[in-house]
């Protein structure tokens, strides 16, 4: 049990680091750097804990992104920054880059390499599984981040009373 928790914490720590790295690449203000790391850590913890309990990656990413979108509202008031600045970097580590890469790789193998009919069917399966997982994870991430604001029917955080 303990080593599972430690492993989860380790993975979450590294998603925090990934969020921080992308934050610095996007030149976020210095006062938002720690927030980006903390949100990346929390989002990673939620996503990987859910996936540990066999929740599908799409739903896991959605809930993690929804958490980021929700916690951003009080955070924006606290550190006086607009929410995009620290809500996008924590979501980037969850971007399905790996699925995108698998999809394109299968497409290229399908076109350039494979002649054997049975292996071509396996490749078609890989293209569809990875491609649609990628699209659905992308949709769930963006909807998840934007949903709290849409539900509150506000287009700026400043007008939300806490």
């Amino acid at each position, binding site marked *: 049990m303990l080593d599972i928790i430690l492993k989860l914490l380790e993975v979450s720590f*590294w998603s925090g*680091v*990934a969020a921080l790295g992308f934050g*610095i690449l996007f030149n976020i203000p210095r006062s938002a750097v720690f927030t980006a790391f903390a949100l990346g850590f929390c989002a990673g913890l939620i996503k990987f804990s859910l996936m540990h309990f066999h929740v599908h990656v799409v739903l896991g990413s959605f809930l993690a992104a929804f958490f980021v979108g929700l916690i951003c509202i009080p955070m924006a008031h606290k550190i006086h920054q607009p929410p995009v600045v620290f809500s*996008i970097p924590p979501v980037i*580590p969850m971007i399905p880059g*790996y699925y995108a890469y698998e999809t394109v790789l299968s497409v*290229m193998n399908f076109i350039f390499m494979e002649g054997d009919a049975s292996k071509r069917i396996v490749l078609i399966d890989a293209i569809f599984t990875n491609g649609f997982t990628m699209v659905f994870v992308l949709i769930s991430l963006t909807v998840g981040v934007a949903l709290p604001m*849409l539900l509150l029917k506000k287009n700026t955080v400043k007008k939300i009373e806490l």
Partner: protein
Amino acid sequence: MNDSPKLIQTADLLLEISSLLMVSGANTNRANLSIDRFASVLNVKASSLISHKTLIMTLIDEETNLSCTRVQNIPPYIINFSIISAISKASWNAISENWTLEQISNDIERIKKLNRYPRIVVLIAVSLAGAGFCNIFKGDYLNMFVAFMSTFIGLYVFQQTHKLKYNLYIRIFLGSFLASVSASIGILYHIGEHPQTALATSILFLVPGVPLINSFTDLMDNNILNGMVRFTTGLMIVLSMSIGLFLAMYLFQLN
């Protein structure tokens, strides 16, 4: 007709602000909101067409009913969230303290001169992010070291070619090709337990996260055209990344 030069000045300032926002990676809705906030401070009514490469804006003075239409081209996109944050703060300050045109344009000049992080900090932070990705996809610490080095080389080439003003997609191809060649050397010498993971994650620093997220928020806001443009940009970036990776895998016979 005394108001006309001032109206032109106002239009140029508002165009400058929205072009800065678009270049820095804000979505279309945010650019529109900022224009409305500044316009309400300056007592004008603004209607604008925001596309990916060009801005068109008509201003109507609320007192004199004079109008002015200006067009501006948007320079190449460089994501910079500090600028978005600073412009957002400036817009709220302008509303609460009722700023004049000069005050706003002075503040925008100040915002344009904001510093970026030093290059070495960016290189190390993004390489650590690459190592982090490798850990997320179950790599061990040796794999993470390979991912760190490959990301570092890839990003260095990506930045260096930016200085030489290469086309964006050529730069992404070169970055992903060199990063995956360095990670493939890890596979050749069997460094770590899952060297394949290091190869897959070494190119993830190029992932077009901001264009893709902005594309979906634009689509949700019914800015369909801008959303589609951003989505296509994202797809082009993914395509150039994977061509670089594919070429490296082909050269090293890693199928």
